[in-house]
C-alpha cells in the first residue's frame, strides 16, 4: 500500500477509506482474501491506500472484472469501488447489468456530485443548476438516481451513507459484506476543491436518518424513499434475499485456478464428432 494519498486535505474520501478499513478489521477479512476492483478517478485510487489485492482497471469498468474475479474465486471478498462519474456515467450500463446479474460483490460509490480528477465538470449526479466551466448555463439534465434504479432492478442490498458519519458508513459496509448477492452503497461525500455547493454542511442539511421503524424489506417503501430528493434518507433503504446470485447460478463454489481439466471427458467429446 501507498502511504501518501493523491487526495486533497479534508477530502471526504479519507472518511470513506477510514470506514472501509474499520469494517474490514471488525469482520476480520484478511487483506489476502480481499480484492478491490476500481476504475479511474480520485475515489478509484482507494485500493492503493489500504492493504489488499487490487485490480485498478479502466474508467467505468470496475464492475465486469469484479464480477469475474468473484466468479473465478468465490473465496474472495470482492469490492468494486469508484466515483459517481465512473460507476453511473462511463460505466452506467455495467451498473444496470451487474445488478441484473447479481454477483456477490459490494459496490461502493463515492458520490460527490462532481468530476474531481478532471477538475470540476458535471457528473451524472450533479444537481440541477450547478454551474461549471463546461455547464456554463448550469446543469439541466435530470440527476441520476442510483437508489431508485437499484431498487427497480431488485438489487439485494441498497444503502446510502454520508461519509461524514464514519460510524454509520462502517456499519453499512459491514452489513453489505455479510449480505448475499450484489450490494450498492452510495456514499455522499463532499469534493472540497470543485464542488462549492454540495459541502459537508449541505449534505448535513439535505439528509436525514431513516428511523428505527423503517422496514427495508418493503420494496414500495424503498422506491418512495429513493424518490425523496429534497432531503435524502440515509441508511439501508432496501434489502432482500430472494434472488439467485451469479455464483449460485453458475454453481461456482471452488476457485477456478484449482480446477483440473478432465482429459477423458474431452476425448469423449471429440469422439462424439466421429
Amino acid at each position, binding site marked *: 500500500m501507498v502511504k501518501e494519498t493523491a487526495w486533497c486535505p479534508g477530502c471526504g474520501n479519507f472518511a470513506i477509506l477510514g470506514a472501509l478499513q474499520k469494517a474490514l478489521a471488525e469482520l476480520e477479512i484478511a487483506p*489476502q482474501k480481499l480484492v478491490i476492483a476500481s476504475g479511474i478517478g480520485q475515489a478509484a485510487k482507494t485500493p492503493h491506500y489500504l492493504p489488499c489485492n487490487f485490480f485498478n482497471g479502466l474508467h467505468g*469498468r470496475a464492475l465486469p472484472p469484479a464480477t469475474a474475479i468473484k466468479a473465478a474465486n468465490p473465496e474472495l471478498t470482492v469490492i468494486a469501488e469508484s466515483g459517481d462519474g465512473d460507476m453511473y456515467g462511463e460505466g452506467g450500463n455495467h451498473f444496470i447489468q451487474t445488478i441484473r446479474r447479481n454477483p456477490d460483490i459490494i459496490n461502493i460509490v463515492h458520490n460527490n456530485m462532481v468530476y474531481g480528477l478532471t477538475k470540476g465538470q458535471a457528473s451524472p449526479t450533479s444537481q440541477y443548476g450547478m454551474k461549471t466551466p463546461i455547464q456554463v448555463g448550469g446543469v439541466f439534465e435530470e440527476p441520476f438516481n442510483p437508489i431508485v434504479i437499484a431498487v427497480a432492478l431488485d438489487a439485494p442490498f441498497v444503502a446510502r451513507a454520508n461519509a461524514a458519519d464514519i460510524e454509520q458508513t462502517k456499519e453499512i459496509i459491514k452489513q453489505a459484506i455479510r449480505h448475499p448477492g450484489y450490494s450498492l452503497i452510495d456514499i455522499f461525500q463532499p469534493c472540497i476543491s470543485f464542488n462549492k455547493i454540495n459541502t459537508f454542511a449541505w449534505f448535513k442539511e439535505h439528509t436525514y436518518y431513516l428511523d428505527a421503524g423503517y422496514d427495508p424489506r418493503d420494496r414500495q417503501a424503498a422506491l418512495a424513499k429513493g424518490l425523496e430528493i429534497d432531503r435524502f434518507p440515509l441508511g439501508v433503504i432496501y434489502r432482500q434475499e430472494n434472488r439467485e446470485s451469479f455464483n449460485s447460478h453458475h454453481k461456482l463454489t471452488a476457485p477456478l485456478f484449482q480446477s483440473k481439466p478432465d482429459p477423458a*471427458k*474431452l476425448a469423449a467429446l471429440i469422439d462424439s464428432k*466421429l
Partner: protein
Amino acid sequence: MRGGQEGDFRAPLDHQMKNELSIVICGEAGQGIQTLETVLVKLVKKAGYNVFATKEYMSRVRGGVNSTSLRISARPVDAYVERIDLLFQLGLDLTKHLRRRIGPLTRVLTEIGNNMTAVGVVAGILGLDRSVVEEFVSQYFQAKGPEVIGNNLAALRKGYEERLDLGIKIVTDPLVKEQIMVNGAEAVALGALAGGCNFIAAYPMTPSTGIFTFLAQQAAAFGLVAEQAEDEIAAINMALGAWYAGARAIVPTSGGGFALMVEGLSLAGMLETPVVISLGMRPGPATGLPTRTEQGDLNFALYAGHGEFPRIILAPGTLAEAFELSARAFNLADQYQVPVIVLTDQYFVDSYYNTGRFAPAKVAAAPAIVKTEADYRRYQLTKDGISPRGIPGYGDGLVGVDSDEHDEAGHITEDLTDVRPRMVEKRVKKLAALQKAAISPTLIGRRDYKTLVVCWGSTRNAVAEALGALKKRDVACLHFSQVYPLHRKSAEYLKKAKKLISVENNATGQFAALVKRETGFEFDRQVNKYDGLPFSVEELVEALNG
C-alpha cells in the same frame, strides 16, 4: 485485383470430375437447408466418403437465398470449389453469385418437395445402402414422432428412386471412419477446452457465435463459466478479471465487437494480464456484410490498442491447426502475459470436413501461476521482462495490478526518471521472447520452388489444392499460421523465391505489407478477393496461372 465480377470463372466449371460430387443446396432461410446439410454431411461421412461443406447465407431469419456447398469425394477435400455438379434449388430464386457457378454440366433440380428427397437423390447417386440410410433418417427424426419420421422416409424413398445418373463413381475411403467431422468453430472451441479454458464472456456476433454457443453448451459438463455480457467492453473486462483471479478466459468476437474491446486490449497490455481473443473476421467497415467472409482485420488486430505493448496473432489454416493453436493460445498468453488473438473468418468457422482425431494431450494446459510470498511484487523486474504471475488468494502476498503506469508492486507512479522507463522496457522486451517462440510457417509443395505463393489463415487449403492444378510445376505455397510476430526463418523462404505472390481475402494486401515491413521482401504480385466470398480452388488456379 479481383472484385468478383460475374462470369469470371466459367472455364474450370466445365470440368466434371468422376471421383467427386459437388452439390449445392440453396433456398430461403427457414426452408431447412441447415437440417439438410447436417443430415447429408453426417450420412455421407458415416458411409466412408470424404466430405467438405461450407455455407454462405444472408443476414436474415426468413427468406432470401442461402446455400450450402458440399464436396463428396474419394480423396480428402478441404476447400471450396465453384463447380456445381448437382444443384438442389428449394426456393424460387437464385443469387447472382450462385447463378454464375452454374456450368453446362450442372444438373439443376427444382421442386423436389421435401428436403429428405434431396438426401434420397444423393444416396441414390452414391449407391448407399438403402436400409442404412432409412435407419439414419429415422434416428435423426426420432424425437419428432412417428408421423414426422414416416413423412421423411417417404420423401427419402422418392429421391432414392429417381436413380439419377451423373456418370460419377466415387469409392469410399477407409480412413474416413477413424476421422472426426467438425467445423472451424468447433475446432476452435474444442481447442479452447484442451487449453484449459474455464471462463467465456462474450456478446453474440456473427461469425463467432458458434464458438460461444458450443462452449456454453459444454459449460456444465466441463465446469466453465459462460456468461453473455452486456457488450464487448464488459466481455473483455470480465475476461481480464477472470485471468487476474486465476481462470483461463476466452472472448470470441468479430471486428465490430473487437473495436469495442480495444481499450480492454490495451489494458491487458498494461496489466500484463493474459487474455485469449478469438476474432472471427467478416467484411467491414462498420456492419459491412455481417454473414460473409473476409481477411480484412489483420491490421486492426496488429495495431489495436493505445500505447506500446506486445501481442501474438495466430491464424489457423486447417481444422487441426485451429484446435492446436486455440489450445496453445492459452499457454502462450499465460506464459508471456500478453493478449493472444486467434484470427479466423466466417468461411473458416462455418466450413466442415473430415479430419484426424484431435489429440489434446499434445497441447495440454500448463498454467504458469505462482504461489505468492509475503513480499510479492506483481511487476518484479526480471531479465526477460516476464514477472512471476501470482493471483489473489493463493499465497501470503498481495497482487495489485493497475492501468496507470505502476511500480513493481502495481501502485500508481509518476516516477519518470526510473520507474516509467524500466516498466516500458519490461513490457516491450517481451517481444523478443515472443519472436523466439513464434511458430514457423509451413511450406506446401516442392522445396525447389521458383514461385512462392504466400498466404495466411483460412486461404491455406484452397491455395494448396490449386497448386496441384497449375500449369507450372515450380510453384510452392508458404502458409503462416502465426502472423505476428513472424518466425525468424520466414525471410529465408522468401529469399529462395524468384517470384513472390501473395493471396489474401482482402483488398489491400495487409499481410503482404506486414511481411515487407518485417522482412524487407516485396511481393511481385498480389491476388486479392474482397467480394465477401472465400477464394475457390478454380479462381486461384486461374489467378496463379495468369
